[in-house]
């Protein structure tokens, strides 16, 4: 019996899609792969810009009085505001749900493209114009926005932050917010309607599951943010006084609206990266994801809880019901813990190969373990009272976000790079990148926990020299430069793979999911044929028909699923 679903239509289509090449192709394409790469390039540029800003911030803090750079307070405030804004709005989110998801989700569901290709292109152009708008703030007369990435009112009102920089910041968030919403609509539709035959919901790869849940969270959270920004803009220009006491407004409303976006946002930034890790660990352990269904439910539980925890950012405002938000925040540790133990269970008794993507996943596990434990502490209001707005919090969320967006994000980058380009990255350079990054990460952020516990507030340009905070700050700055150096190895690696390509083949890692069935890079409409989908690992089943998942309900010898036999001469481009 043959198990390959032939897609004749693709062949006919392919003839008509020779289209423009070069720059024109990048600008006019509605191909999800081209748009995905556009997203990745743009978000990586934002990542490196924001990283350079972080280095400037760290240099400033090597001494209490301004360090070697001697930035003014205004310059420092602009830098930490834009560092946070670029990293969170323009890198961590778009890199995952704009870049990786755009490229990978249609492949993983066996679709020829996203459901709405032109809407997809619109998303990218909105994102790019939003990104440029935000960075242009530096060129405005009063400088870029300087009120932190959260833009708390009333500090962000025209009275306290006049000028065009803050307006550009608000506009940029509105633009990228719409971009995210459109991408979310596209992803949800694609996942619900364009799955290949046999790909039931409980056979979806966990990355696609993560993106589906993320997209739903985006649809819940981003409209709130956009609305909050529209109100802030009208406060600044039309004297609506929504967030100002003087006109009868309520300043704390801004915080509620912002964090009603902001906390789901934390999981919008985390779930896709959990999904990446859930793809890579099984492949490099040569095992199915342990507790796959539990993983899906854990993802949904995290998303559901994340809409009810926003006020844990507001414990010290004295305006929120502490026990409610504390309990829900603490409970998020439970599904997150389930994920952790499932990842460990996947590695357990596996055959783990420590190629670079897997190394980055292990780095993620340690980083997120530490960030998660301190997160549980901060979910307890009395401990938050003692550490709120100090470097303890800074260390916590950097460990969480660097753990996810950087460790897991670059795990995904190394993992799918052969699929994106058809070329391998070099292992040696990748290992240098990982180890320097790993060491730099701990050296940068562990001292910040101690600084926070001693009472060093965040967002300060100067500190009192007599308090002995300087040494820990210098250690942290050294760590930041080690991280920066590690990324030189990434850039060299990409350059080497470009100049001296090593062909990757279609399935260099013995992957499990459908993207490894397409050619590298995939052809215009992705697949000429598809294997039958009988589990969440169709490509593994195709290549290892005798090693299917063992059912848990027998004595351990039974095969859970029927072996898949393959028609002759139909190995679908597999080498």
């Amino acid at each position: 019996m043959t198990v390959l679903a032939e897609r004749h239509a693709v062949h006919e289509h392919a003839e008509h899609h020779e289209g423009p090449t070069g720059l024109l192709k990048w600008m006019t394409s509605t191909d999800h792969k081209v748009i995905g790469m556009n997203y990745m390039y743009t978000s990586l540029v934002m990542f490196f810009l924001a990283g350079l800003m972080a280095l400037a911030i760290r240099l400033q803090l090597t001494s209490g009085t301004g360090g070697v750079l001697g930035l003014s307070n205004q310059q420092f405030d602009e830098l930490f505001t834009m560092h946070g804004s670029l990293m969170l709005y323009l890198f961590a989110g778009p890199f995952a749900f704009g870049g990786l998801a755009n490229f990978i989700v249609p492949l993983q569901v066996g679709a020829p493209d996203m459901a709405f290709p032109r809407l997809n292109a619109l998303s990218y152009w909105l994102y790019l114009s939003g990104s440029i708008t935000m960075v242009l703030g530096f060129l405005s007369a009063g400088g870029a926005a300087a009120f932190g990435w959260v833009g708390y009112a009333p500090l962000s009102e025209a009275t306290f932050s006049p000028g065009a920089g803050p307006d550009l910041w608000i506009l940029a968030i509105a633009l990228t917010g719409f971009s995210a919403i459109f991408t979310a609509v596209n992803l949800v539709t694609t996942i619900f309607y364009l799955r290949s035959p046999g790909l039931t919901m409980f056979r979806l790869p966990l990355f696609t599951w993560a993106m589906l849940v993320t997209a739903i969270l985006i649809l819940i959270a981003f409209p709130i943010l956009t609305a909050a920004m529209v109100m802030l803009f009208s406060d600044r220009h039309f004297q609506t006084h929504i967030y100002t006491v003087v006109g009868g407004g309520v300043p704390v409303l801004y915080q509620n609206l912002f964090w009603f976006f902001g906390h789901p946002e934390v999981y919008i930034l985390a779930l896709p990266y959990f999904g990446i890790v859930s793809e890579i660990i099984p492949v490099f352990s040569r095992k199915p994801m342990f507790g796959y269904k539990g993983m899906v439910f854990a993802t949904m539980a995290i998303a559901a809880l994340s809409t009810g925890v926003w006020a844990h950012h507001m414990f010290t405002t004295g305006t929120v019901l502490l026990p409610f938000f504390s309990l829900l925040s603490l409970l998020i540790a439970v599904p997150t813990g389930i994920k952790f133990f499932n990842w460990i269970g996947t590695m357990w008794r596996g055959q783990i190969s420590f190629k670079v993507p897997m190394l980055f996943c292990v780095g993620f596990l340690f980083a997120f373990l530490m960030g998660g434990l301190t997160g549980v502490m901060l979910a307890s209001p009395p401990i938050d009272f003692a550490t709120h707005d100090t470097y303890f919090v800074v260390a916590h969320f950097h460990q969480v976000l660097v753990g996810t967006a950087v460790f897991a994000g670059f795990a995904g980058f190394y993992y799918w790079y052969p699929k994106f380009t058809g070329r391998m990255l070099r292992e040696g350079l990748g290992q240098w990148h990982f180890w320097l990054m790993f060491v730099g990460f701990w050296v940068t952020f562990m001292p910040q926990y101690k600084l926070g516990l001693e009472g060093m507030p965040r967002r300060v340009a100067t500190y009192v020299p007599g308090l002995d905070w300087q040494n820990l700050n210098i250690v942290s700055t050294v760590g930041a430069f080690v991280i920066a150096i590690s990324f030189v190895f990434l850039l060299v690696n990409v350059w080497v793979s470009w100049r001296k390509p090593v062909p990757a083949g279609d399935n260099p890692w013995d992957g499990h999911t459908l993207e490894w069935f397409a050619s590298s890079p995939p052809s215009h409409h992705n697949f000429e044929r598809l294997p039958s989908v009988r589990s969440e690992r169709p490509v593994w089943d195709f290549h290892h028909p005798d090693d299917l998942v063992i059912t848990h309900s027998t004595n351990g010898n039974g095969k859970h699923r029927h072996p898949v036999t393959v028609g002759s001469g139909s190995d679908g481009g597999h080498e």
Partner: protein
Amino acid sequence: MNAPTTGSTGAAALKRYPRRLALAAAVALPFVLGGCQLPTFWGYRGSTAQAHDEFRLWSGTFIAAIVVGVITGFLIIWSIVRYRRRSDDVPRQFQYHFGLEVAYTVIPVIIVLILFGFTVVTENAVDDVAPHPAVSVDVNAFQWGWQFTYAGKGVSIEGETLNDPDPVGLNGAACAPADHCLGPGLVVPAGKTVRIYLRSKDTIHGFYVPQFNFSRYAQPGVLNKFDLTVQHSGIYRAQCTQFCGLYHSEMFFHVVALPPSQFQAWLSTEQSATTAAARSSSVSGQAATGATAATGHISTSTRKAAA
């Protein structure tokens, strides 16, 4: 449900750890309840009664975090060392173990509920306000300074950034050490309950005294009240923690806890000084201490211009 036979060794090992974790939590519990001999874990033991409650929660939580972190970390390290690839064999393809999955769902829920119980008890103690505090102080934060008004006493202290208009210290001496005495001083009696009414005149500020293990936002349109019972006389440095604009980094204050008799004496002196002359000129600032040399080049007038 039975585990796959060869998978059971690993599964059973996994299953053992949550029990050890529960055991460790039981060992940690007396420490949590026992109080003062807990390790500090780089935090402050706390100089107020409220801070001491927070400290016990902090220390207990930290112990629990170490237990969970060590177990999980060990499992990760064990997996990556023990199961690194040694051959091209395909390992057994087991995927589910219902009992184990339930265990690592239920046990974290129990741990979280225990932590939540201690959290609620502690936050109620920290946020508790006494019916009759010994002293009430209206604290008003502004860009970039603090105003402390002693309700019904006719005394008000106001200072911007590094400047302390009233550098009172312990036992009649000037405030010292200099690095702890930046900004205006909030003078309170040690050992008595002090009620703080916290407001802001403009943006959001953070009232934060590290050694009190406590912070609270000062917000426009919101009146926050809380009690501080400073246990021993001393100088406690403090500063704004919620970013509030250009001179946020220099928005210092400090708490001066005096023995009650010295506090009464200080209050009387201030009252007579206030009645003698309007102290409004204090805003323009007597240079506080030598410590202002670090960043004190910013004069009050330029600061106002910047605002």
